[in-house]
């Protein structure tokens, strides 16, 4: 059963000048995690905001747990949890205050709210910090508290909008652990991220979005096969770039990308490709300044899927139609 379904969502800002969503459709199977992968401005947050009833689409429809988000937003709110990109808790209050407040707003009784706050603080390893104002928390603690606040009544669907953006590697690891634990508990999750690695770690399926629409979807493995898994990257003297390009193209069997003196291409044979490339370079008497096998990044996914690198602001102004409805 599909727990989240979005069909042909369109959303423009500034009277149609900026198109955030352009016929976006996606769905999430019950009890699974969908990772929505895309660069800044590709429409990830807009999608989440529409599904979480914060924003109305210009056209298209969406269902969450079988409920139409436009027709019955109040019913949708009873079954979802939302944890935003910017920790949306009251920073002047303590972690304890926040969780009790949100419990009360979910209409738990006074004692129930206290118990729930206690449980959640313990579960997210925040008991010691419970009585401190949120503004004294580290980035990771803040995100954990934010997540805790979205789990007060066990939601059927959890929306996580870039849960680890801005966290240090340690905080990211912790957060991943927490989310994985949740997923084992059976909740349906839609998670947005800019990191392929994150989607790879957490999601059963990945939808890649660009300019407000889904450009590819599939399991992490399928996607990686498409991207070529790893990436061979060789930096050489300017004079050798052309020759190196030919070598890389031959070894990888994929289109190459040249950035100044660095030549790169997706490879599927791992270290084998590295050895072949080194041999070929040696035969051609080229001395590489740097050579590496890199795990694929969002840029690589985009390069493979769209032929262009993920751009920060991919929203393009559409020509405004003034004076017409």
């Amino acid at each position, binding site marked *: 059963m599909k727990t989240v379904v979005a069909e042909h969502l369109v959303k423009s800002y500034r009277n149609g000048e900026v198109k955030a969503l352009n016929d976006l459709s996606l769905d999430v199977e019950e009890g699974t995690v969908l990772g929505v992968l895309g660069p800044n401005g590709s429409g990830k947050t807009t999608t989440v905001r529409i599904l979480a*009833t914060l924003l109305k689409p210009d056209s298209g429809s969406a269902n969450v747990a079988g409920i139409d988000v436009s027709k019955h937003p109040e019913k949708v*709110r009873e079954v979802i949890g939302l944890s935003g990109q*910017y920790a949306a808790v009251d*920073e002047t209050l303590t972690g304890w205050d926040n969780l009790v407040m949100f419990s009360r707003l979910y209409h738990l009784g006074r004692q129930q709210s206290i118990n729930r706050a206690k449980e959640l603080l313990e579960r997210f390893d925040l008991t010691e910090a419970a009585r401190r104002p949120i503004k004294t928390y580290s980035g990771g603690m803040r995100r954990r508290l934010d997540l805790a606040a979205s789990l007060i009544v066990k939601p059927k669907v959890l929306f996580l909008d870039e849960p680890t953006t801005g966290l240090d590697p340690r905080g990211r690891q912790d957060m991943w652990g927490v989310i994985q634990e949740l997923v084992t508990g059976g909740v349906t999750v839609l998670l947005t991220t800019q990191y392929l690695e994150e989607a790879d770690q957490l999601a059963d399926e990945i939808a890649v979005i660009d300019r407000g629409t889904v450009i590819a979807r599939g399991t992490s493995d399928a996607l990686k096969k498409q991207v070529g898994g790893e990436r061979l990257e060789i930096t050489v003297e300017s004079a050798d770039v052309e020759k190196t390009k030919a070598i890389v193209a031959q070894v990888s069997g994929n289109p190459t990308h040249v950035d100044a003196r660095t030549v790169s291409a997706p490879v599927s044979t791992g270290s084998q490709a590295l050895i072949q490339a080194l041999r070929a370079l040696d035969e051609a008497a080229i001395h590489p300044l740097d050579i590496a096998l890199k795990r694929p990044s969002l840029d690589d996914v985009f390069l493979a899927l769209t032929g262009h690198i993920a751009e920060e602001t991919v929203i393009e102004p559409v020509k405004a139609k003034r004076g017409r409805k």
Partner: protein
Amino acid sequence: MKDAISDALVITKRQLLQLARIPEVLIFSTIQPVMFVLLFRFVFGGSIDTGQPGGYVQLLMPGIFVQTVAFTLASTASGLAEDMKKGLIDRFRSLPISRGAVVIGRTFGDALLNILVLVVMALAGFAVGWRPTSGVLKISLAFIFLFAFGYALSWIGIYVGLVVKEARTVQAAGFLVTFPLTFLSNAFAPTTGMPRALQYVAEWNPVSSMVAACRQLFGMKNEFGATANSWPSQHPLETSLLYMVLLMAIFIPLSIRKYKNTSN
């Protein structure tokens, strides 16, 4: 409906907790009006002849009461704008709570703060010679008027906070509105000294009718207005009531609708 009220009260409680966590806010929001009382009383009090027993402070206190409740409009607005910016309003909007609860809760919190500020100011006024002469009933009615006026204005604050979205802009814009509103009135000086055109503006200013109503309820003649002989200056109580009802009738539905559709 029962849920709506209890949701709103949770939001009110949040505001009180905030005050408990940052007591400076509470201290400064009570010191400021007391400072105004002292400044006006001792700077202008000696040189303005009111022709009434008890001197300038009798006319001043109603003016300062009204000014203070009017100033809270700006803090209502900036508090809400801050919540919007931090994403807290988005969080609230994703919860299964009634539509008006968040903004209603905030107006309740600001109303409670207003009560405290009014009490502190009344004590400060008393200490510097303010003596209302009308009797308990009318004095209480004056405070109910002040409280209600503050409540009505806080809904303007809610609307401004939802529309402007940037706390610092709100703070600055708030002063741009509240300063002329409170000084272009009979609150601190007679309207008779103003150019004729301004006299009309001042007399139709809700602040003037409120001040005149309070002066009347505290038991003194409103010597600072009524030169243009406008209807509001003749009927301050009725005019004040009318303004309050009007403000709430306009800004409550407007604000709740704006909250519902916000960030679209």
